[in-house]
């Protein structure tokens, strides 16, 4: 049953990611990516990470993609027009990347067979309180470093987007 839900959510994520890439209108691309991220959030819940799923919806779909949409509206970027130019290098690299990753995946499946390293599942894995205990004890320094990084990004974005004559 979980498997069925996982496959359905993964399919939604993949289909809308494909729509995001092939769409020419950037606004539609952002909206397709929002749906794709909701599908991914469902898979995160099934992978025993409900807190990360909430973060995915609130921070990724809610904040980051809305920021993208905001900048798109601000810049008033129209749909990409086909310019007729062949871009052979990009096309070859894009096709090659897909082939290489598909080959790597197939090779991995053939090598590992059907053996899935499923271990005993601790019940506290899905518990946000247990996650917080690990995060604020073993990884406290990293957490603080990320807060400094976010401050640096805030200052950097302010300096970059500021008008120069004021």
């Amino acid at each position: 049953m979980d498997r069925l839900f996982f496959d359905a959510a993964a399919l939604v994520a993949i289909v809308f990611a494909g729509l995001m890439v092939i769409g020419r209108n950037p606004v539609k691309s952002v909206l397709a990516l929002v749906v794709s991220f909701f599908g991914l959030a469902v898979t995160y819940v099934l992978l025993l990470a409900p807190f990360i799923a909430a973060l995915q919806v609130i921070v990724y779909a809610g904040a980051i993609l809305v920021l993208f949409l905001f900048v798109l509206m601000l810049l008033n970027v129209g749909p990409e027009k086909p310019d007729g130019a062949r871009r052979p290098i990009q096309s070859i690299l894009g096709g090659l990347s897909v082939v290489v990753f598909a080959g790597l995946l197939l090779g991995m499946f053939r090598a590992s067979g059907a053996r899935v390293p499923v271990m005993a599942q601790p019940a506290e894995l899905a518990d946000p309180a247990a996650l917080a205990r690990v995060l604020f004890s073993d990884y406290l320094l990293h957490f603080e470093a990320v807060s400094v990084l976010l401050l640096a990004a805030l200052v950097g974005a302010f300096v970059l987007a500021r008008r120069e004559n004021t």
Partner: protein
Amino acid sequence: MIGSIPLSHVLLTSGALFSIGIAGALLRRNAIQIFLSIELMMNAANLALLGYGAALGTHEGQILVFFVIAIAAAEASVGLAIFVALFRHTETIDVNKINLLKW
């Protein structure tokens, strides 16, 4: 619960999303759509991390994903600020027309 989801399905989904993202980053011309493709690739990596974290029964996968989301937020804010500054100078965010630093 994870026992009923094969890790191979997680990795297959992750690989498919990463391939779609890398193809989009190479084939699109609009800088914002390239940026969206990069966000998609980060999410593919997050899915693989969570899959392994759940399969191994540790919290480390979730903690790494937590940091990746925070860094993606920082990256999005700085990247979009660069696009706004770029648009103010060149009136376009088509990456084929912005070639000041090329060659």
